[in-house]
């Protein structure tokens, strides 16, 4: 498996760390248990297209939002979490 880092180009999967789905981008407010549950635990977990978070740990240290098919492993898009690409895709990221 290879991932094309927007900063470094195509790299082997070994350079990357996988965190989980984009749900982690939505930071819950205060002690709202449902929001915490959605942030940390509940997942759509689709058999198909998913957007999940990868970290180019052995490369540029960028966090990436990867659009990927969980059945075929085909990767259709890789965007930087830190750039607008990801912010626009955040479900309800709140400003801090």
């Amino acid at each position, binding site marked *: *498996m*290879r991932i094309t880092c927007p900063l470094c180009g*195509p790299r*082997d*999967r070994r350079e990357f*760390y996988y*965190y989980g789905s984009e749900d*982690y*981008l939505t*930071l*819950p*407010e*205060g*002690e*709202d*248990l449902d*929001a*915490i549950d959605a*942030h*940390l635990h509940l997942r759509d977990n689709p058999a198909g297209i998913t957007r999940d*978070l990868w*970290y180019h*740990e052995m490369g540029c*240290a*960028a*966090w990436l939002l990867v659009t990927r098919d969980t059945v*075929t*492993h*085909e990767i259709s898009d890789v965007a*930087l*979490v*830190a*750039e607008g690409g*990801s*912010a626009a895709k955040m479900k309800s*990221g709140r400003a*801090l």
Partner: protein
Amino acid sequence: MRVEGKGRIDRSAPVRFRFDGVEYQGFKGDTLASALLANGVKLFGRSFKYHRPRGVLTAGSEEPNALVEVIEGRQQTPNVRATVQEIYEGLEAKSQNRWPSLGFDILAVNDLASPFLSAGFYYKTFMWPRAFWERLYEPVIRRAAGLGRLSGRHDEADYEKAYAFCDLLVIGAGPAGLAAALQAARAGADVILTDESAEMGGRLLADTAQIDGRPAADWATAVLAELGGLPNVRLMARTTVAGAYDGGTYGALERVGLHMAERPDLPRECFWRIVAGQAVLAAGAQERMIAFADNDRPGIMTASALRTYLNRYGVAPGQRVTIFANNDSARQTARDLMAAGVEVAAIIDARADASVAEECPVYAGATVVGTKGRKALRSITVLHRGGEIEIETDCLGVSGGWNPLIHLTCHMNGRPLWDAGLAAFLPKPGAVPGLHVAGAAAGVFSTAQCLASGAGVAVTALAALGRKAVPIELPAAEEADYDLLPLWEVKGKRRAWLDFANDVTTKDVRLSAQENFASVEHMKRYTTQGMAPDQGKNSNMGALAVLADATGRSIAETGVTTFRPPFSPVSIAAMGAGGRAEGFAPQRFMTSHSASVERGAPMIEAGLWYRPSYFPRLGEVTWREACDREVAMVRSTVGVADVSTLGKIDIQGRDAARFLDLVYTNTFSTLPVGRVRYGLMLRADGHVLDDGTTARLGENHFLMTTTTAAAGLVMRHLDFVAQAYCADWDVRFISVTETWAQFAVAGPKAKALLETLVAVDLPFMGCAAVQVGQVAGRLFRISFSGEQGYEIAVPARYGEALFRDLLARAETLGGGAYGMEALNVLRIEKGFITHAEIHGRTTAFDIGMEKMVSAKKDCIGKGAAARPGLVGPEREQMVGLRPVNEAAISAGAHLFNPGEEVARVNDQGYVTSVCYSPTLGGYLGLAFLRNGRARHGEMVRLVDHLRKIDLLCEVCDPVFHDKEGVKLRG
């Protein structure tokens, strides 16, 4: 025996080798199988279950029978295919799975008991009495099962792994692969051409066909010469592409040195990760058997293997050969044999309308219904026009048709498509992205078609690579038709083998259907068909056809089991190359490493790091003596310890303080410049992630320290929080763990020591830039020991020098170095936590730090930490433990209320850290106890069944030493 004038072996280079202790001679270019066949050897092994005598079935890696052990001194390699192993001077091979000898095998008695050993019989018996399974049945079964033997000794040989990148990977160097490689190479693409065999050319080496009017092998040689001369082509012989993976990545095994007697500079094998823009699969096809009564006798082989032995190795595996086939391709074997002067006793062709053109008896519309000969084939019985004829023969070549080798196309879950005309499964187009199939693997069988298919597919692949193909002219070649009458089994009363390697017969498959293990996966799992070393390459199609017949379904409806990597078995050592010994994980060394080793310190693993356990002095016998001394030294004079393994993260920017407020539970924006603060960090789920100190070096400049274990975790966490939640903040950070060497100087004389070196005028929890000689360093007034403590940091290249210098200065004050053991005792005495306490399940509440979670601001994990399950008296809270007597206590012990039964339901907690405290003169422990903070002064019973410890302890505050922190600040 050898046939004069045939074969590609080098008759000028004789090679001596041994099989089962007998010395034989072959020639350079021989495989073990061809050389033994040339010497008249027929018996190669014993079958898995019935221990039936077995000969060679094939001439390739799919061989199910001729598996041997190759002996190299005290080391040996089991299950080596005699059909693949090239001979070398002094090669020593042994037959396997037989006792006492290949010729006389006691367990051949199983063959007589075969009615009771049918498919899955073991699921129905061996259940009574229960205790006999492990004591009797299983040991007996285990010993009888299995094939070759490992030596049990460490495999000390060299193996390698490597990466390769190319535009086009061509798998298989037969006619299709050569044409594909030539097409792509001439277009300028970077090409890797792999072939499983020692010599490239595929079936062109084994056939007598012609290309452009000259022997096909000569054409192959010429093409290979051209390819070999091109800078953009890499030829990889003896290389099997074993698996197709995501992103155009292929795994391949190169047998680098397995054919050499000596290989001083070469590994045995190399496992390649080949990343290819596009790939062409030209793996060819494999001839299949027909199931008929006793079709497993030595001397029965595939017709193409027979042809290969004759044409490539110059060996006639029999003197009076017969051929049994359902298609045209086997006729060439008969013709080649006759042309070479070998007698062909008969051709048995299952097709009633088969042509009768050869100069030998041809029985059209006939089948083989039986065979004779225990250790070697003597005769076959042929059913022809209603009558049985017995024909004397010592070698029978069988062809049931051809199976395209489509395995790689299925490695990404692609299901193959049934082609009724070819009676074979063909690859599903696009099943592996970027992998194109050519030649026989795609179901085209004539040489001309293969050449055209290879070149054509290469053009498609080049287009996908964005390259324009240069037209190449294809040579003239044979265009024979492939006419086949599907014939999977000749039904009869006696057993007919499908899976030779696992001894699965047509009866087993039918029994499986009878018992309603009717899906192809159930049949496979119930009968074990396809699970032997040949991975079902010789049996899947036949078994599937018999199952389809038994269940009244078509083959297409029955479906096929899934092909999974590897295509042919790959050694653990090759795929695990580099992992041996310390190669398994990186080793990280502190700058003080050699200085510590010089002082005799045992170095122990701390994550990937090595840290000194203790620094023994003359006369000290046990680690405890050294540890106790070092603790006393720190408490009374001064000790020096390398703490460089702690993670160090340099954080800068206008929003750096704001960022720290977000990731730490406590506030850092209020920290004055030149001061240090202890911080607690939570995971998003509210549990403690890590702790450590952070210094404010400037208004917008902080230096965070993490624990050794969590350094990487924290860095990743900070990167995520910064990029995901604070992308527009002005904060940047980088790990400087290895940039700085840092040493703790602790003890009442710490200041006195440092004053001889640097300007020391720091309040407790202060920090400052200092000059260490000519070197710009940093000084922190922090303590993990509870004593007056400093940490001094210099750029890593000065670390060793500073360490040695500090030790020398310490020694003049009566101090010295201390190691991890003493460090651990010092921190337990002081009630400081490590990852033994913050083990991933503890919260700030559990460790008594809930007050460090600022109420005035939000932080990562704060909301999650407030969940009802993470607070409250039913949770275990950190406490100190003191045993009531001088006895030892142990970490990992559990706690109970005195008087209650020691059982899970009464469990009150557990001990995380213990030490003998020379300071307090007794054992101390840190523990988590249910509602523990409310129970100081109570007695608990500590039970460690494993170490046989059972005693009472008093629960106390976890800070045992200098509760008021007088020494710390003093």
